[in-house]
């Protein structure tokens, strides 16, 4: 039985103003798979994440991105989100005064509405949220605070994973979720990610370091340099990368 492709990126070229960043990036992700995308700073990892989520300011000059068979680049960011694309931000923003629970309820109900499902009322939502809090072993205090306001780096990343748990995306893109995390926080975040793995959804884990992949075991590892994938392999590729360094692997290609 052939697997259902969730994301198909084909020969993507893109950049900002006059600077080319992605130069022929191709990648296919199927349902049930976890892909790790590794690379040095400036190789284009975060640009890829931003383009997939629909952030303004990037020009796509060539190539296609299909999401569940549909042209992803044609959709507004909120439409992508409602169809199940989730970006765990590298730097989640603070929204002072906006209660986290309220925010997340609004988000979930937008997604449900677009799917033709009934919106959850406050009580149903609270029950759902409490389950997820337990699943991820997070502190319930999170729900009472304003979105990311005054959160530590680790708390912000945990909050992102928590949002992911509630919104149950088809495609989760984790942009350097490990950056700035101490080892304990890293464990919490990655165990959360592992628990959220489902056969009908996929995860793209973008990271600079191998250490995250000690906790999140990917099915595929891709090494990115200068705007495209230069090498792909199984989880052992990450270890090779750690041992030899990026330089050696990129040069060998």
């Amino acid at each position, binding site marked *: 039985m052939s697997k259902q492709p969730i994301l198909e990126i084909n020969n993507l070229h893109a950049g900002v103003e006059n600077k080319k960043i992605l130069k022929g990036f191709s990648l296919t992700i199927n349902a049930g798979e976890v892909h790790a995308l590794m690379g040095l700073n400036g190789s284009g990892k975060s640009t890829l994440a931003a383009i997939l989520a629909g952030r303004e300011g990037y020009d796509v000059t060539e190539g296609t991105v299909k999401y569940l068979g549909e042209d992803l680049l044609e959709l507004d960011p909120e439409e992508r989100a409602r169809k199940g694309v989730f970006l765990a931000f590298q730097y989640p923003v603070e929204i002072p005064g906006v209660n986290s629970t309220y*925010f997340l309820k609004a988000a979930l109900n*937008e997604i449900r509405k677009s799917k033709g499902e009934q919106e959850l009322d406050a009580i149903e939502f609270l029950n759902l949220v409490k389950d997820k809090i337990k699943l991820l072993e997070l502190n319930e205090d999170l729900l009472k605070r304003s979105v990311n306001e005054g959160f530590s780096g680790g708390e912000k990343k945990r909050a992102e994973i928590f949002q992911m748990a509630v919104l149950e995306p088809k495609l989760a893109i984790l942009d350097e979720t490990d950056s700035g995390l101490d080892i304990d926080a890293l464990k919490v975040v990655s165990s959360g990610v592992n628990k959220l793995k489902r056969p009908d959804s996929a995860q793209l884990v973008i990271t600079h370091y191998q250490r995250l992949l000690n906790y999140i075991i990917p099915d595929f590892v891709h090494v990115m340099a200068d705007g495209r994938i230069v090498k792909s392999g199984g989880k052992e590729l990450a270890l090779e990368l750690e041992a030899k360094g990026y330089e050696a692997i990129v040069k060998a290609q």
Partner: protein
Amino acid sequence: MSTDTETIESLVKQEYKYGFVTDVESESTPPGLSEDTIRHISAKKKEPAWLTDWRIKSFRYWQTMKEPTWQFVKYPKIDFQAISYFSQPKPKGDAPKSLDEVDPKLLEMYEKLGIPLRERGRLAGVAVDAIFDSVSVGTTYREELAKKGIIFCSFSEAVLEHPELVKKYLGSVVPYTDNYYAALNSAVFTDGSFCYIPKGVRCPMELSTYFRINAAKSGQFERTLIIADEGASVSYLEGCTAPMRDENQLHAAVVELVALDNAKIKYSTVQNWYPGDENGVGGIYNFVTKRGLCKGKNAHITWTQVETGSAITWKYPSCILLGEGSKGEFYSVAVVNNMQQADTGTKMIHIGKNTKSTIISKGISAGKGQNSYRGLVEIRKSAGGARNFSQCDSMLIGNKCGAHTFPYIEVKNTTSRVEHEATTSKIGEDQIFYCNQRGIETQDAVNMIVNGFCKEVFKELPMEFAVEAQKLLGVSLEGSVG
């Protein structure tokens, strides 16, 4: 990675849903201002001679004054001779004795505005005094309030029925010499609300006044006086709307609050006068003097205002903290969109020992709006141990608007403490994108972010009105971001 400015501009538009005109026959005095006009208004209201004299004194003083120019707003010179100073729906025979006799067209209008004058429905439990142009058309729950000794009626009635209270307190907080518009108001004021809460009584319901300007070419000059006697407390709310007209109309009110020993007055305003169109044509000039006197020990006055309407807003609800240990608070949200201008803030005058004041001001600017916070914290020598905390935050939406802060701080003793914090932020494209990425569209994201920004102020509003205020803010900023 910026949200395209042109998209922002092309979407800046605003809908004003209270812009209709009610078709009632009204009688207005011809435009023009002279001692005769004032005598005419005074006679029309059957006022005692002392009040007529006070008006004339005010008028003569006003004539010696110059229109102030220090505020950070621009408008063409006002022709005070072109304004009609008195307008009322034509009475059908005698004045209505109860709400049942009020012109059904007026009742219908208030229903349409969401302010039912019948003592039931959504606002059941809130007493309303409805001011239409220059007169009060009705006050609800009067009998029930009277049982507790609370007087809640139109200012005109108070003059006739409780002259001793009016005479004692009128002009005691805002003297007619105070400023240009206060002097003008003292000369020509027509109606407004009067409220007296006797000793030790907690007012059992919210009191409110709803101001409506309807007639063309008329100004509205209302006068409100609220007195909370020793140990009394009251929460009061005012709301305002006006039809859409191409001309500017002047609204120059005076509000005086007096709180005696241990009394508490909470005064909340949701101001939604017609703001003019996107080119700045029409709209209300809202030039208002509001001041509260904490006359007694531990008196407490709180001003909360949500200012979303008016072409120009020019007001500084202030507190004079005379009584020892008295407390003044000012919570404000001021929104300008399109061509609106606001110069608003507060004055906290600390005179008594150990007096405290808090100022939280949130200014939101969109379109080409200009928003200024202007505030004075004055701590006199006598006010040992006084404390003030001020926080002034501005939020900009788009890049054609402006936010300005003019704080003045004067401290005349060494035992007081004053803190001032100010921030200016642009509504973050990052914040909007973050919301988008969670499935929330841009307009909803802006509402959410702005409401979050204003939360500290909204939580000071009476419950029913906090919800209204949030909705209003959404309407005011509709289309301000693309």
